[in-house]
């Protein structure tokens, strides 16, 4: 077992590495610094929880890691590639390859079945494969609900469809934004177990959460306050690490 604290300073082993990342937004009121000089790394197979109060820069950080945005200054490496060097089109492609999103509100398309919602991610990534999409749904325990519309599924089931959709293109990073924030206790437990299983299988999970119980499941917590990052020590073993 390697010491994670050492890995935090070794971007060469990291699947996500931030080096002095700052993100500023210009508005009428002047320049707003949403994230300031953030430097940390997340290694492959790690489960990291990002916590902090509203306005602390969590969404900015998620957007940057999710390749939905680019830093104003500093370097952000995802799977070894500096996202600042990518054109907008390359960034779209890169996002489809590298990041699977799990949303608090699930964001399933209401007129598409569970299966089609999973296939939608395949469509925008490369090409649809119904067999593979069905397998992904079976993996989250929803093989029997493949033809159902989101409105015919419970909140927990919808979140599992969302997870299947995030997994379908085999991205190295799962980016979960409050994955249980909209679920009741029973479904929260199901989704937490699913994330634990995925972590056990070696998936890298970056999870934004307000929930201390969910945050406790992560190996490491990155706390944000007023756009500044405070890394917390490892709370559990790193199950799988990339070379």
């Amino acid at each position, binding site marked *: 077992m390697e010491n994670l604290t050492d890995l935090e300073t070794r971007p060469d082993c990291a699947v996500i590495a931030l080096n002095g990342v700052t993100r500023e937004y210009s508005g009428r009121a002047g320049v707003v610094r949403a994230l300031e000089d953030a430097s940390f790394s997340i290694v492959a197979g790690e489960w990291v929880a990002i916590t902090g109060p509203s306005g602390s820069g969590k*969404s900015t950080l998620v957007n940057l890691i999710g390749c939905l945005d680019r830093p104003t200054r500093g370097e952000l490496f995802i799977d070894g590639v500096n996202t600042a060097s990518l054109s907008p*089109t390359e960034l779209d*492609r890169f996002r*489809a390859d590298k990041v699977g*999103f799990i949303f608090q*509100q699930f964001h399933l398309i209401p*007129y598409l079945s569970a299966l089609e919602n999973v296939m939608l991610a395949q*469509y*925008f990534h490369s090409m649809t494969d119904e067999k593979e999409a069905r397998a992904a749904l079976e993996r989250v325990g929803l093989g029997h609900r493949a033809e159902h519309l989101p409105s015919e599924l419970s909140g927990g089931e919808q979140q599992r469809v969302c997870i299947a959709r995030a997994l379908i293109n085999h991205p190295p990073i799962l980016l979960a934004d409050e994955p249980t924030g909209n679920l009741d206790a029973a479904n929260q437990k199901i989704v937490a177990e699913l994330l634990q299983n995925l972590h056990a299988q070696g998936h890298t999970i970056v999870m934004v959460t307000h929930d201390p119980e969910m945050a406790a499941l992560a190996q490491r917590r990155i706390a944000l306050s007023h756009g500044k990052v405070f890394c917390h020590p490892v709370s559990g073993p790193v199950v799988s690490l990339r070379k």
Partner: protein
Amino acid sequence: MFFRLLMESFRRQRRRKALAGLAILLGTTAVTAMLALATTIGDHIHQELAAYGANIVVYPAADQLEVKVGGVDVKPVSGGAYLKESDLAKLRGIFWANNITGVSPELPLHLTGKTSAGADVDANATGLWFDHSLSNGGGPALKTGSVAMHPWWKIDGRWPAEKATSADSTEAVVGTSLASHLNLKAGDSIQTAGRTLHITGIVSTGDTTDQQVLLPLNAAQQIAGIPDAIRRVEISARTKPEDSFARKDPDSLSPKMREIWYCRPYANSIAYQIREVIPGARAEQVRRVEQSEGNVLKRISGLMWFISAAALLAAGFAVSAAMATAILERQAEIGLMRSLGASKGAVALLFYTEAGLLALFAGGLGYLAGSGLAAWLGARIFTESGPVQIGTLLIPVLFPVVIALALGVAIAGSTPAIRRALTSDPSAILRASA
């Protein structure tokens, strides 16, 4: 998946799509109607204005000064130069032959004789084509004559038949004034120059022709003793409105510009081509009618282009509003697609395809509706054109134009909403819709 998203969009946003489609339909209906009228208006207006006379007159170059008093050619009949009637067939061979819709040669002469009732006749007469087929041997003949060229002439009786002319008799009509003066009516006759003129009708022209005898051209030539001679030819031609280029002297233009001038159906260039084929002729446009036609055409065409542009602009705004609402409703979907890795192009393609399909469908319907509207309007505005023919209802060349315009309107109308949606931060869209 693309078609699934496309079809679902139409199924789920029926009202929005119907609204945008209706805007395109109305816009393209108006544009089709205006374009259809604009492309045929020249013919229609020409037909309407043809009722006011010829727009080109041809006379011998050696006889440039017409000596007319009160519309009556007072030049001695025996004097002056003549053109050849047989040369008129060459008009069917000029570049703009198909634009010539009427030809009416004239030969004025003076008659003296007696009516069947014994009254002395001392009157001017004109030899004319009444119902003549003009052909140069190839292609279809042009049915023409003074009757068709002067639709306001009213006949009490019937027009003379050219074939009824023989060495000693011919048919003729007499103007109302002269008929009244000589107490003539249809069925009477006049003895002149050793032949009998059988009066087949009394003609009312509203001008000095009412004091004349009108007889077939061949008979007039025989009586005057100048076979194949004509003094003047009135020509009605479909022309392009006169502009500054039309007034250029072709002989002063460069060869290239001269060719362009020559290949435009200006009254001047048609007159020029007539001069080329009829030796010794001078052809000039009758400026009053020609200019009226040009001015009317210019104004109406301008109005139609303005209406078309306004209709398209209105349709564009309506499409823009409908698409903006439709896209706003699907912001979360767009945000999701973007977060799943869809490029801006991929998302834009989806919405533009929707707009394109809408344009094809609504534009196609607009073309049909507009064609019908043009026919309906045409039938009511241009009474001289007669009833609408089914075959002329649709103008196929307009179809791609209308579809292209519909696509342009739909795409231009959709672009602001699509651009706005694509420039929005997908994560913000996802959070806003949460």
